[in-house]
């Protein structure tokens, strides 16, 4: 416990232990100033029950190959049962984690392997049929607070042993794709998604292991139905039991949790320290929407929060202090902590009471693709994330039903990681110290530092990073200060590719949250900005396009230094930067344009479905405390 506390304190002060990873060559590409690596830490393959059922057949090895640039085929299937849509990343990822649901690994195998004794059960026959009723049956088993496996399958096969076999395949795929040579071209992680969904509230966590030393089987919500039970099991099977086994978990983007993901009450300080240690970052964005903030709810007037809201623009009931239920079905109240701003403020309040902030968390983005396609997050190349359910423009444009998918989903985001090299140890350590950030898809490079004092005109210095490192702390850190904190933020646009150029930057904002005797507060400050760019909605051409006759706007590079004029001694505050791109056509409007006007589905004329969006990056926060 004390060791963990010291770790948290050390990491919070910006100092990070160097990665030492046995069993691999040292990386040639290595920088003490940290390089930027791009990855996806939320990826489902055909091992997940809600991927195979939609005709998706790519496995973990395919997913890792796709992440490294190989072309793969997706549904819909043709008459002979072959997938018909080719997808390929123009720019490979640097790292990825396949995170299949740990629930049903055995059951899916049993239902899809014709030599299995359970293959002929009606449960399996219906599953292979892929009917909505079948997905409801399989999904419903998640809902009780004491979930049980299907006895119709697990009485016929040894589900525990079958799970271990599939888990071995998951580990093998990760091992095969991990580049242990000095080239360090690609890093994979052994991982899975623990998917507890009591009363249809999303409590999912992606469990990520640092190395190849992992427990003999993944923990599912059948084995451990609550977060505490998950961690007891992870401690018993990994941290406390297995030399060299290290693990962290990333809470799913919280917008469907009805207030259950980040509770307000902690029994004691030790429990809060544990939570801060176990789950250093949270997923701020993925294909099931944005979880930063919600305009018009929880006291938020920030218009930029009106971005990729899974539940649409209609106001939802505020849970107040009583968490609700039904979130994963688009039902129930929403809680302030369903968005990370509320989580940050809740953390500050708990810290005032307990002296420890369990929600001192960083941010990452990921895709949550159920197509085995990590990093397929480009707005202008979206081929869906859910097999046949999102396999065509018409299918993607449907209004969301109880089943996932539909026009309010999006292509998901990416995790940007500032790590000394591209190895498991270095990436894992960067996540631990929260020097990571999320984007809604674009590869915007952004650095943020905070210090009591920064060198003069640091935006005009080539040694920006070492100078800022010396003066203060990077994103994810905690600044102890006796004066008003100063922030330096430098951002570069996503250059894109020749075929699909990136979009220029529009503005950088700093979001500040703080708590004082009068309660919690939040403000948004624009620290540097440019004119808003334009999009021709008839063609999706933007200013700066070679063909478009629209004057160019925006910037390839923005840098700003800002000192908080309102910081007061004794004020516990948290700050993160939001970097917005100039607008582009949303994926759904591009799909609409691909369909003849008279055949377009209703959602193409629904005013609540945006035609254009401003994609963005969110840095991990820096916490500021009085020294």
């Amino acid at each position, binding site marked *: 416990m004390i060791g963990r506390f010291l770790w948290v304190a050390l990491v919070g002060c910006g100092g990070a232990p160097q990665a030492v990873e046995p069993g691999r060559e040292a990386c040639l590409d290595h920088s003490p100033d940290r390089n930027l690596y791009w990855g996806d830490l939320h990826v489902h393959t055909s091992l997940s029950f809600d991927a195979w059922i939609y005709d998706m057949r790519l496995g973990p090895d395919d997913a890792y190959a796709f992440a490294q640039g190989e072309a793969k085929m997706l549904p819909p299937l043709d008459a002979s049962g072959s997938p018909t849509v080719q997808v390929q990343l123009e720019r490979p990822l640097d790292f990825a984690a396949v995170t299949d649901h740990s629930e049903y690994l055995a059951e899916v195998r049993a239902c899809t392997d014709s030599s299995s004794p359970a293959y002929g059960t009606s449960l399996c026959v219906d599953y292979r049929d892929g009917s909505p009723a079948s997905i409801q049956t399989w999904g419903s088993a998640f809902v009780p607070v004491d979930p049980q496996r299907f006895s119709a399958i697990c009485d016929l096969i040894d589900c525990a042993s079958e799970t271990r076999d599939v888990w071995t395949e998951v580990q093998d795929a990760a091992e095969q794709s991990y580049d242990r040579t000095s080239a360090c071209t690609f890093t994979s992680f052994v991982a899975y998604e623990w998917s507890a969904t009591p009363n249809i509230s999303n409590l999912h966590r992606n469990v990520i292991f640092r190395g190849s030393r992992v427990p003999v089987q993944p923990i599912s919500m059948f084995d451990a139905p609550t977060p505490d039970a998950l961690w007891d099991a992870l401690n018993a099977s990994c941290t406390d039991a297995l030399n060299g086994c290290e693990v962290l978990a990333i809470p799913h983007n919280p917008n469907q949790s009805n207030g259950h993901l980040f509770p307000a009450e902690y029994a004691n300080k030790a429990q809060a320290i544990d939570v801060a240690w176990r789950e250093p970052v949270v997923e701020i964005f993925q294909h099931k929407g944005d979880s930063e903030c919600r305009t018009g709810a929880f006291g938020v007037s920030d218009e930029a929060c009106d971005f990729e809201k899974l539940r649409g623009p209609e106001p939802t009931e505020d849970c107040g202090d009583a968490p609700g239920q039904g979130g994963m079905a688009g039902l129930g109240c929403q809680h302030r902590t369903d968005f990370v701003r509320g989580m940050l403020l809740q953390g500050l309040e708990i810290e005032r009471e307990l002296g420890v902030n369990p929600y001192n968390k960083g941010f990452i983005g990921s895709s949550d693709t159920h197509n085995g396609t990590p990093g397929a997050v480009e707005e202008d190349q979206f081929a869906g994330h859910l097999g046949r359910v999102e396999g065509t423009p018409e299918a993607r444009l449907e209004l969301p039903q109880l089943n996932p998918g539909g026009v309010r989903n999006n292509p998901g985001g990416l995790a940007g990681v500032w790590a000394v090299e591209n190895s498991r140890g270095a990436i894992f350590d960067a996540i631990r110290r929260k020097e990571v950030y999320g984007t809604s898809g674009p590869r915007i490079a952004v650095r943020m530092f905070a210090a009591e004092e920064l060198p003069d005109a*640091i935006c005009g210095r080539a040694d920006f990073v070492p100078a800022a490192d010396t003066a203060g702390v990077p994103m994810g850190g905690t600044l102890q200060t006796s004066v008003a904190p100063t922030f330096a933020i430098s951002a570069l646009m996503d250059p894109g590719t020749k075929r699909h150029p990136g979009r220029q930057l529009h503005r950088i904002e700093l979001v500040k949250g703080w708590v004082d005797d009068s309660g919690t507060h939040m403000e948004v400050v624009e620290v540097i900005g440019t004119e808003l760019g334009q999009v021709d909605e008839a063609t999706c051409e933007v200013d700066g396009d070679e063909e478009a006759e629209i004057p160019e706007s925006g910037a390839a*590079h923005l840098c700003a230094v800002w000192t908080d004029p309102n910081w007061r001694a004794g004020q516990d505050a948290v700050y993160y930067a939001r970097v917005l791109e100039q607008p582009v056509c949303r994926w759904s409007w591009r799909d609409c344009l691909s369909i003849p006007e008279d055949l377009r589905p209703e959602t193409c004329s629904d005013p609540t479905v945006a035609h254009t969006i401003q994609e963005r990056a969110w840095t991990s926060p820096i916490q500021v405390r009085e020294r």
Partner: protein
Amino acid sequence: MQAPSRPWRREPMLWCSVIGLLFFGVDWALSGPVQATLSSEMSMALDQDFERIQGRTPTDAERRGLQQRWLSEEALYREGLRLGLDRGDPVVRRRVVQKMQQLQTAQDPTWTPDETMLLDYLTRHQDRYLVAGTATFEQRYASPDRHPDPQAEVRRWALLLANDHPESPGFGDAFALAHRGVQSTNQIERRYGARLALAVSEAPLDEWTVAESSYGWHVLRVTERTPQRLPTVSAIRDKLIEDWRAEQGQVAP
């Protein structure tokens, strides 16, 4: 002198009989209808299995527990086999089939390449395994947001840097990506774009050169380059075996 008679409690014959009966009794109690024995190999395997899962060797008490559990299960297993419980069980059938398939793959000499075969495969497919070269360089970036003509600005910097002008250490704007250090050539292209990657690969060593990246204009100086190379077989053995087997599978009749 007649030896004094022993008390009956110290009679060796009695104790031998008692010990013998005890041994017999324990053996009788432990053995079921079918008796199992623990070989030294199995004992070692149990230890290794424990170590694989727990990351340490078992204590004596744990080892006794493992062995006792194995013996009990083994006795039940053998009795089950004797009664024919394995016959007609689809789970057993499936596991045996899986094991046979694995065994066939492992034992078949045509599926186990030796060192020479792997080296030959690596050489034949070297494009697939080449490790990119590296360049050590530093760069200064002129932000279009801060300079009206960034290209002219970096040209001016290049001249002054070449002459160690006193102001030159301060040239360059805050650039989020690394401004110095060793980088692999494929990462340079990913990070800065093809044009700057080309410039880094061609620039004369130790001289300041002007180059354009995806973000605008830079002045850069390369101090060292290492060429691309083939990795050793040992560094990528598992991957090579897997790829070699895939090729064998494709050419097999």
